[in-house]
């Protein structure tokens, strides 16, 4: 019996209560705290802003970065350098702020381009993020009098604000950034980040340009970190190379892990508390305090992997994504016009080799809209490889692939998806930490851009995708997390996701594996209707010959990387070749009878 965990949710009342407490603390701070504490809190607020950006990158998008301190340092030095060398004026302040944003953005764009190119490993991106603060610090150290080298810049004129005013400004900025990040994270677009963290391959096969999203996100967070740095530099009147260093970058990671990665509130509150505690305790026990922090980090990682703050806030419903179940609505799909000469897909001379080993050799294959081609053949014949070559331009060794009239050349999977392709993988390939409804929404990404501020209350899917989830009972499980679905349900979910793209060509690699015979029959009806009614072109790899017989309009047999024969089911099933290489004695006996 599957039971749903009662989820605590952030109610409007709780949210308002938290808002009032936060606003209350910001407004009343100067009357409650002494000036030493105010000073510490203002700095902590600026650090907390950077911590939020790191949490968005690491906690939500899965990009472990030590480099946000570099952007913070750039912002701080923009203030320090401009105010030292130009003097302080309204104009120079605007110039410094613009520089803080522009330099951070440019550097982030460059770093993003280096870190997230197609095929780069997450490890590589993290190493680059480690190099960035080290290089920045070296540049600052070698700047001589201009950057103040190791002693940094001090004593420059800056904004003439009282401590109270700084507290209010920094507090308000932190609240704005926190609120903005929270809105984006819980919006539909925010789930794109979680999708990227879960499964980049699936993202690109849904037409999401993952490197681009990551670069844009890095640039945006870098600008925020740069502005926070500008605030810090303007407030403190001192900038030092440590502000851009990787020690701060690492401390940010520690603060976030302690506070609770991937919750926004945890890192925000954690950063403030740790900074305040550090200010009081590091003077009384300078060495032991760092040791305590380090130990706490280890203990929290081992015992409380979700951090310290979320368990404290759970009763109030914070730190958990809201799980409103959307209502399903039908998205109208345009019926494809009858094939006007151009086949849905056309492969000519497609070859794929690993070194001297040829997996595919001179494959020529065409299919039109409304055809459902069954691809059969022994295990290892190259069926999945053929599908890969059709959906990723960089994969084949030679030959030409045309999808709906577009030559795919060396194009990426997301381009192929835009040409009208949908691909269902052999193993269930879904977003494990997202709910069923969220997975399906991500699948409609190219048809309907998810909103950056809102959560939609409806989920629009093409009729055939709705059929798949109805048949497999997923419509009653829209709020379940995909990880907790059975293998067969994950397969069905992935099939529904691929169909949610409203593709014109569907590649299906054993779409019914793990489903019961009765479910297979029903999915079979859905697949038939894709070709007959909606005029999609389907290429289906399947080992259940009865299933293929029922729905396929044409059968293609692959053997050792070549197309061995094609024809109707009867022709193929009767051939000696298929009997000997593939079907085994039972089938042969059946045919004989």
């Amino acid at each position, binding site marked *: *019996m*599957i*039971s*749903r*965990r009662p989820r605590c949710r952030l109610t409007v009342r709780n949210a308002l209560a938290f808002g009032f407490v936060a606003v209350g603390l910001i407004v009343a701070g100067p009357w409650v705290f002494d000036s030493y504490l105010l000073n510490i809190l203002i700095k902590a607020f600026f650090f907390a802003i950077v911590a939020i950006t790191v949490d968005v990158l690491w906690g939500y998008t899965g990009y472990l970065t030590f480099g946000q301190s570099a952007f913070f340092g750039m912002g701080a030095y923009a203030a320090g350098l401009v105010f030292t060398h130009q003097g302080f004026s309204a104009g120079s302040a605007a110039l410094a702020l613009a520089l803080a944003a522009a330099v951070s953005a440019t550097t982030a764009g460059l770093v993003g381009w280096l870190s997230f190119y197609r095929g780069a490993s997450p490890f590589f991106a993290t190493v680059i993020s480690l190099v960035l603060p080290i290089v920045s610090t070296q540049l600052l150290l070698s700047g001589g009098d201009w950057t103040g080298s190791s002693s940094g810049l001090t004593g420059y004129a800056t904004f003439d604000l009282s401590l109270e005013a700084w507290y209010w400004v920094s507090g308000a900025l932190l609240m704005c950034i926190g609120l903005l990040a929270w809105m984006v994270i819980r919006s539909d677009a925010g789930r794109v980040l979680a999708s990227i963290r879960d499964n980049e391959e699936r993202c690109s096969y849904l037409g999401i340009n993952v490197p681009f999203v990551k670069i844009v996100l890095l640039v945006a967070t870098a600008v925020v970190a740069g502005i926070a740095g500008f605030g810090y530099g303007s407030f403190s009147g001192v900038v030092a190379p440590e502000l851009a260093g990787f020690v701060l970058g690492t401390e940010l990671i520690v603060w976030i892990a302690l506070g609770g990665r991937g919750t926004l509130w945890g890192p925000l509150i954690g950063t403030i508390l740790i900074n305040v505690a550090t200010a009081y305790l590091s003077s009384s026990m300078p060495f032991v305090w760092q040791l305590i922090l380090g130990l706490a980090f280890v203990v929290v990682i081992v015992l409380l992997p979700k951090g310290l703050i979320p368990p404290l806030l759970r009763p109030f419903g914070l730190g958990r994504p809201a799980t409103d179940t959307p209502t399903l609505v039908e998205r109208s799909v345009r019926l494809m016009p009858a094939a006007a000469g151009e086949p849905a897909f056309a492969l000519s001379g497609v070859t794929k080799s*690993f070194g001297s080993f040829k997996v595919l050799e001179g494959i020529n294959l065409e299919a039109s809209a409304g055809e459902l081609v069954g691809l059969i*053949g*022994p*295990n*290892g*014949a*190259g*069926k*999945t*490889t053929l599908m890969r070559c059709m959906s990723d331009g960089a994969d084949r060794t030679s030959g030409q692939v045309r999808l709906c009239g577009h030559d795919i050349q060396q194009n990426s999977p997301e381009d192929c998806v835009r040409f009208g392709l949908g691909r269902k993988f*052999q*193993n*269930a390939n879904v977003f494990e930490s997202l709910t069923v409804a969220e997975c399906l929404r991500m699948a409609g990404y190219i048809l309907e851009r998810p909103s950056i501020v809102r959560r939609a209350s409806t989920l629009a899917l093409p009729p055939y995708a709705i059929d798949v989830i109805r*048949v*497999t*009972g997923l419509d009653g499980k829209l709020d*379940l*997390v995909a*990880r*907790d*679905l*059975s*293998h*067969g*349900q994950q397969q*069905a979910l992935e099939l529904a996701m691929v169909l949610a793209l409203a593709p014109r060509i569907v590649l299906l*690699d*054993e779409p019914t*594996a*793990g*489903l*019961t*015979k*009765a*479910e297979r029959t*029903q999915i079979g009806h859905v697949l038939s209707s894709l070709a007959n009614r909606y005029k999609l072109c389907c290429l289906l790899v399947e*080992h259940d*010959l009865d299933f293929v017989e029922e729905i396929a309009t044409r059968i293609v047999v692959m053997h050792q990387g070549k197309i061995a024969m094609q024809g109707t089911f009867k022709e193929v099933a009767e051939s000696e070749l298929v009997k000997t*290489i*593939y*079907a*085994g*004695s*039972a*089938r042969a006996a059946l045919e004989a009878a």
Partner: protein
Amino acid sequence: MSTCALQLSSVTTGYASSVVLRGTSLTVARGESVALLGKNGMGKSTLLKTIMGYLPKKAGTIHLHGADITRMQPHRISRMGVAYAAQEHAIFTDLSIRDNLRLGLVKNATFDERFAEIEPIFPLFKTRLKQQAGTLSGGEQKMLLVARALMMRPCVVLLDEITEGLQPSVIERIADALLWERQTHGTTMMLIEQNVPFALKVADRYLVLKQGEIVDQGESKVSSAMVSIFNHLKV
């Protein structure tokens, strides 16, 4: 020595967001082969994962040949002679086929002898022992999984949808191999299957699971078995 190979008493278990098995009890005799059938999401894979020690038990006990394995770690259970062919992500893609097979063995020296046993079932591995396992096709990886489980010469083998994605002739060979394995070594088997004819051929007894509970069971070789099972599998 107990005549029961496996004994589950009132086992309750599940995942973070759901309870899947509620007080499930079942017994598998030594040398018996039992098929677990049922629709998706009914707790079949969860049952095998629970036996293997991958999921924390909320209540109940599990005994293997009379020994309590309820709180045992998966590697200890494996060393007691339980082989498990999981549904997915269960081979080491960066290792060679040979190394994948070798990992199922307690002693390396027995490799040649054991490999000779499974080689007729999976002839494709003979010439490709050095090939990286990740470069095998999906179906071939599945065969590797079954081969590794059999190489262990286990006393209990747990097989989770091993026929998925395999060509019909290979499925036939696997069925023969499992029957041979039982005859020669008296191996106890539990298998999850969507391929009902295969399951009935290999198993003595079948169980149908529905929402974590056993709703039907019977001998697999009686003629009414198929009808009874399909009634439960209807959508």
